């Protein structure tokens, strides 16, 4: 179950990394109309009750919607499987990743990117060689935050993936489950495990950042 939680949380984080980085970059650079609406929409899962998000997802994946119908015709079952766990985690973590990454991109001096262009780099190369290395720390913080949020996901998961031990039960679901069954000692152990995992994730990120800072100032 610990392995399942780690794997789904990691999978969800990897899944949202490319679209999250793109969305963050767009928000950091785009200044035109509609920016406010876009920002609000992207932040919505942060403030909505996770159960509401879960319910919306459940409806969207139901057989009556075009998306649900298409998935069913392809023989893909999402609801109440591990895929639903990953989906719930991804949706709930996405805004956190975007927020951190966006701040990180905004802190990169655009003139440096422009200079990279005058030195012969195309837009993609300038992003890879200047923007990314300079925004690296903020991005990493966003990834750790998203991963930790995914690990702790409860509300949306329980709605679309259920709480099936051995199939869709994650750590945070199991803590609740055991507590409900009166097995507080087990619940406490699992809470301890999540604490240790969260600590390890944060500490690893810190370690990377410190090492990088030391190299940069050497």
């Amino acid at each position: 179950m610990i392995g399942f939680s780690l794997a789904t949380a990691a999978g969800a984080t990897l899944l949202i990394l490319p679209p999250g980085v793109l969305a963050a970059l767009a928000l950091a650079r785009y200044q035109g109309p509609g920016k406010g609406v876009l920002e609000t929409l992207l932040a919505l899962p942060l403030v909505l009750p996770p159960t509401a998000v879960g319910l919306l997802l459940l409806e969207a994946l139901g057989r009556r919607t075009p998306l649900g119908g298409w998935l069913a015709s392809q023989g893909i079952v999402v609801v109440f499987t591990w895929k639903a766990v990953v989906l719930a985690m991804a949706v709930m973590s996405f805004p956190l990743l975007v927020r951190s990454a966006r701040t990180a991109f905004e802190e990169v001096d655009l003139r440096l990117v422009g200079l990279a262009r005058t030195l012969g780099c195309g837009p993609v190369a300038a992003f890879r060689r200047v923007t990314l290395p300079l925004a690296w720390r903020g991005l990493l913080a966003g990834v750790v935050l998203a991963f930790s949020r995914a690990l702790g996901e409860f509300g949306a998961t329980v709605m679309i993936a259920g709480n099936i031990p051995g199939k869709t039960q994650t750590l945070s679901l199991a803590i609740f489950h055991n507590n409900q069954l009166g097995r507080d000692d087990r619940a406490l152990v699992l809470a301890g495990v999540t604490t240790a995992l969260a600590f390890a994730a944060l500490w690893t990120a810190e370690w990377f950042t410190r090492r990088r800072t030391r190299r940069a100032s050497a």
Partner: protein
Amino acid sequence: MIEIDLELPLASFALRVAARLDGGVTAVMGPSGSGKTSLLEAIAGLRRGAKGRILLDGRVLVDSARGMALAPEARRVGYVPQDAGLFPHLTARANVGFGARADAEAVASAIATLELGPLLERHPASLSGGEKQRVALARALATRPRLLLLDEPLAALDVGLRGRILPYLLRVRDEWKTPVLYVTHNVGEAIALAGHLLLLRDGRVEATGAPFDLLATPGMVTDAALGVENLFPGRVRTHDPEGGVTSVELPAGQTIAVPLAADCAPGMQVTVAVRAEDVIVSKGVPEGISARNIYEVRITALSRTGPDVTLRCAAAEGGPTLEWIVRVTPAAVTSLGLGVGQTVFLAVKSHSVRLV
């Protein structure tokens, strides 16, 4: 050759620049806010909204009528901003080698020209202002640009450092032979480096020409920072450490004593600057005064300029003449009875003379 015919909308006005510039260094001067940096950014491709055309060696960089603007990476224009703009996450070596077209040979010779050897493994955070500028220059040079844009590369440095960076700029000019647009506020830099000057004011080109002629024309440069009226090309002759003076030869065969400038080797070309109000006028041969430089001249023009009177004086004898601009009070004109055609003596303290 670079051909510019641009209209650039800025915050409060539109900058109009039409100019054809040959190789060598062109200094771009003008008051703050006259659009100098914006012009460089438009040429580099970092600023949108420019209307008109920019051609570099016959290649079209911008032609708004045809809706065409080359991407910055396709222009082959090197840009060094005022603060150097080094990539903070890379060593000096990686900065110099950053350019997509920076081959090993170009990188090596850029490093050699700017003497970066000892700095290469350091990050920008640990470099001084002057060192950063040298690294940024090398980074631009290593891409073998067709045009180099330098935005006040010495402005952020203190006076002592400027003198140490200037020789590097001269080397870039003379060894790389890359055409340069050089934005500066400093008359001395413009004269020392540039063969051509573009003077911007109120959103247009006020004057173009040889820097020396333009800057020595009274009234042309009214910017307070440029208030040096007498500029003469000179050549360092001898140093007198005991007397604390350096003797500089002027074109008319005259000499002028300046405060000891031991770092200028004899034979070196320099520019001598004297403010018009620092020149003393005397009707007879001045005797027993401390001023080291005394010249016999004839007044060729006399005009009231604001609260002062400006005299133009030419050397009394024949031959190549130096024209002096002298500013005195109306009271001095009256008490000395000064008039056009009179012969007077000009006295200049050596400490009123600057080498720029």
